[in-house]
């Protein structure tokens, strides 16, 4: 016995004989809705009705729609309606993926522009120390406030103006980045509270982005989660040009980052718990973050 689902109905087939069936309504809205459910892997009411809860394997068989009074006009309209549904519905994790990727790109831009600012600035104040530049950029108005006496020669007012504009651009980017970080934090709270609590919103969102989405991340083995974001290093390793990487973006987490020894093991245990967090988020959103964190600390303190 097998269950065959077609766009126009559900059929119970025994040894190639159709023994029972449930047709869909002859209406393109209704058919489109069912196409959507099939696409999402949901069980149709008609399937339940036919199997009465028994487990029956899904199978295939040619069945002619016209034998049951359906026309291709119906399929045409339903498939267009279904296609439009796919666009209307943007999965809730898409926004946070955009935002966290934007943060990465802005970060790169900030770094590049800061280097440029420093290089330029040092023409005039060659003695200035690297560590002061955060402050200098934040306050730059054409003068050196931290170390005014080190100026080598006069800066022309156009140069001052240019440097100031560069500094302002960097600050604007920083502001945008802060806003995006708050946004990611808030969104992650909604869509993946456990992962966000356990790994931090930024790393959590990055894992979602790298895997392609919360759904995909939820079925990913933890060994793969551990390496998400290390693809380049992994590739280098596979072509025999480098060490096998032990961690991807999760390296940015302070527990792993600051570990003095056993980093590989800690990364593995971390990924393990992150995987549990994601599954909880995907299937129920039931909050188990506290227990997970405790569990994790215990696991890594055992040496």
């Amino acid at each position: 016995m097998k269950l065959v689902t077609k766009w126009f109905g559900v059929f119970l087939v025994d040894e190639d004989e159709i023994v029972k069936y449930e047709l869909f309504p002859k209406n393109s809205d209704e058919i489109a809705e069912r196409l959507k459910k099939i696409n999402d892997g949901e069980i149709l009411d008609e399937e339940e009705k036919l199997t009465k809860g028994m487990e029956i394997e899904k199978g295939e068989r040619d069945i002619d729609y016209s034998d049951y009074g359906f026309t291709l006009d119906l399929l045409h309209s339903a498939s267009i309606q279904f296609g439009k549904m796919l666009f209307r519905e943007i999965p809730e994790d898409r926004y946070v993926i955009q935002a966290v990727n934007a943060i990465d790109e802005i970060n790169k831009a900030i770094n590049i522009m800061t280097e440029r600012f420093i290089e330029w600035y040092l023409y005039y104040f060659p003695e200035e120390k690297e560590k002061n530049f955060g402050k200098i950029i934040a306050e730059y108005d054409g003068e050196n406030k931290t170390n005014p006496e080190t100026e080598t020669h006069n800066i022309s007012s156009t140069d001052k103006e240019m440097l100031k504009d560069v500094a302002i651009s960097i600050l604007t980017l920083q502001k945008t980045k802060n806003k995006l970080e708050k946004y990611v934090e808030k969104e992650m709270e909604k869509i993946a509270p456990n992962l966000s609590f356990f790994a931090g919103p930024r790393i959590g969102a990055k894992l979602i982005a790298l895997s392609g989405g919360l759904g995909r991340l939820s079925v990913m083995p933890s060994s793969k989660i551990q390496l998400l974001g290390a693809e380049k290093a992994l590739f280098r390793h596979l072509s025999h040009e480098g060490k096998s990487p032990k961690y991807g973006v999760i390296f940015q987490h302070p527990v792993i980052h600051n570990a003095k020894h056993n980093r590989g093991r800690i990364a593995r245990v971390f990924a393990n718990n992150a995987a549990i967090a994601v599954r909880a988020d995907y299937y129920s959103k039931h909050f188990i973050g506290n227990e997970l964190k405790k569990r994790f600390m215990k696991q890594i303190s055992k040496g």
Partner: protein
Amino acid sequence: MIKEYKFENIYSDGKHILTKGSPVWNEKTINNYRIWNPRRSKLCAMILNKCKIMPIKKNSTVLYLGASSGTTVSYVSDIADKGMIYCVEFSGRVFRDLIAMCEKRKNIVPILADANQPESYQHIVESVDVVYQDIAQRNQIQIFKKNAKMFLKKNGYGIIMVKARSIDTTARPEDVYKKAVEDLKDFEILEKIGLEPYCKDHLAVALENK
């Protein structure tokens, strides 16, 4: 003078290949016949390069893999005006345009899916007379075979636009074509047609499911 050109529902004015149907974009028409551009459509290039067989006919049901935004599909829909075209495309970006085109054509069913996974549209597509494939993919022959096995009728036809560059970037096109044809040995190859000068590095292969 517009005349039927060798095949059902395909016309010519001596200069262009034409089909009959309502315009979809603002493409040029001659006396209400749509001009078919061989540079934008490999099927048209295949006709201009004098293919002897046109598997797609008035009444054909066609499974079209790699529909993109539907340029060629719209002409196939004119040819198979009494048939049905199931077209599969996996890029959401172009699928939007494809749907817009399908709204103007009753005989097309658009499907957003990966042609690597024909199971995912098995509940929609029936057995077909023709499987047409134009997806620039490394494993395109394998994808064609999977789909043909599942949907192509016995004695049905296949048209494959084999792309030399995407299957193997370093090999010479002739070698790539030879290998592709070998991989298709379960079918009877009817014709092989180069698409130059309209389209580079492509070979059209027409075959029959024996």
